[in-house]
């Protein structure tokens, strides 16, 4: 017994080292598997406040770019309004009668990006809206140009968001022109491009095809822009195309985002939960 204690004491530095490394790696692995480690992320209050102050300063340097983005988004919305088919009735009056907000499936919430990374293997954003504003983990996040990510944790006033630029974040998407489904996944490296996987070889693809969200999951609304095909190849023995997609969202200049709340998400997910086990 005595020699055991002596051994432990003699190796105390190494044992402390092992102990701390085990904790560290446990945190690393926990984070990879989307579980736990809830405390050490940037949505905790102190961390988020520091990031918030720092982003308040750096925001002034990007005002011009943000304005240009918002103007472009406004232009698109105006264009959609103008191009609505005339039906001989004032569309605005019809809208206000037939669509009342209790029929909405999606609600959106504007939030400011206070922290963003693009150059790491797995990237995250922090936004300045949290559980007090009704945000819960699992909600989708979209930007003015296209999809951005998914809420991972939320504290009272902040949330941390898994960016589309995360190697383990898979998004169900479709080619808009022919509604062929594929999985969008970022392969690390260049923040402007991601890969579209599992597009079978009989499908006809074209460079420039728009990739939109499929609506199969409850995170993103159907038909939201994800990117455009920039190049694709297929080798003779492959089942699936190798497709490179230019992402719609410019993650370098992302300042404001919208959190999408699917009001029917719970219903859809619980229905699927009930159904799926029957087949397995």
């Amino acid at each position: 017994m005595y020699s055991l204690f002596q051994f432990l004491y003699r190796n105390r530095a190494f044992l402390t080292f092992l102990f701390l490394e085990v904790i560290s790696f446990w945190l690393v692995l926990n984070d990879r598997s989307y579980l736990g480690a809830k405390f050490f992320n940037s949505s905790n209050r102190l961390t988020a406040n520091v990031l918030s102050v720092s982003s308040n300063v750096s925001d002034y340097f990007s005002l011009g770019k943000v304005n240009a983005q918002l103007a472009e988004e406004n232009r698109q919305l105006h264009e959609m309004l103008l191009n609505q088919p005339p039906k001989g009735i004032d569309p605005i009056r019809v809208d206000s009668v037939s669509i009342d907000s209790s029929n909405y499936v999606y609600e959106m919430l504007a939030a400011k990006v206070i922290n963003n990374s693009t150059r790491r293997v797995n990237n995250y954003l922090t936004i300045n809206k949290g559980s007090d504003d009704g945000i819960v983990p699992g909600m989708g996040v979209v930007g003015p140009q296209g999809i951005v990510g998914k809420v991972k944790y939320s504290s009272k006033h902040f949330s941390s968001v898994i960016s589309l630029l995360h190697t383990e974040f898979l998004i169900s998407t479709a080619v808009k022109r022919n509604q062929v489904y594929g999985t969008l996944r970022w392969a690390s490296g260049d923040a402007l491009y991601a890969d579209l996987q599992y597009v079978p070889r009989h499908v006809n693809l074209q460079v420039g095809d728009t990739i939109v969200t499929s609506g199969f999951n409850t995170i993103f609304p159907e038909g939201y822009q994800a990117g455009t095909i920039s190049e694709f190849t297929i080798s003779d023995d492959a089942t699936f195309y190798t497709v490179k997609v230019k992402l719609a969202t410019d993650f370098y200049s992302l300042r404001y985002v919208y959190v999408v709340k699917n009001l029917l998400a719970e219903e859809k997910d619980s229905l699927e939960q009930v159904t799926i086990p029957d087949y397995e």
Partner: protein
Amino acid sequence: MNRSNYISLAAAFIILGLLQVTVLKNLILGNYSSCFIYILPLLLIPLEVSAIALMATGFLYGISIDTFYDTPGIHAASAVLVMYLRPGLIRILTPGGGYDAGTQISAAELGWGWVLSYFIPLIFIHHVALFFIEAGNLGMFWVTLGKATMSSIFTLVVSLIILYIRMPQKGSRL
């Protein structure tokens, strides 16, 4: 090591930590080279501090940096590794007459040669550990090693500049 040295060391921890998570986090040269200057105060902890206290400090400091980077455990693991290796390296680098009591880690007392042979291995080991744990595999071995090397050079240069600036004021080094 008197009290004012400990105060300026504590200040270095806070100032360089904040600099790391607000400014340097967003500063990446040529998509390859980032600066992890937060490691500097860890390397400047006085010689008389015990190995266990060193690792505990490294862990707590690393995990704080991790919360800002949204990478639980990565910085903590690398900082603990560096703190574990530190006493051994200092022993290897013992100058001819041994260390005087109260010797501080600085170029003025130990010379630039000593500082370089102390900083280069530890900074490089830290960065290699950091980038490989982040990558999670050896798939892009050379890219990851390249990033670690370029970043080590960046961190080393900034560390030496800070040491040089702080040098002339006797008794209140970082």
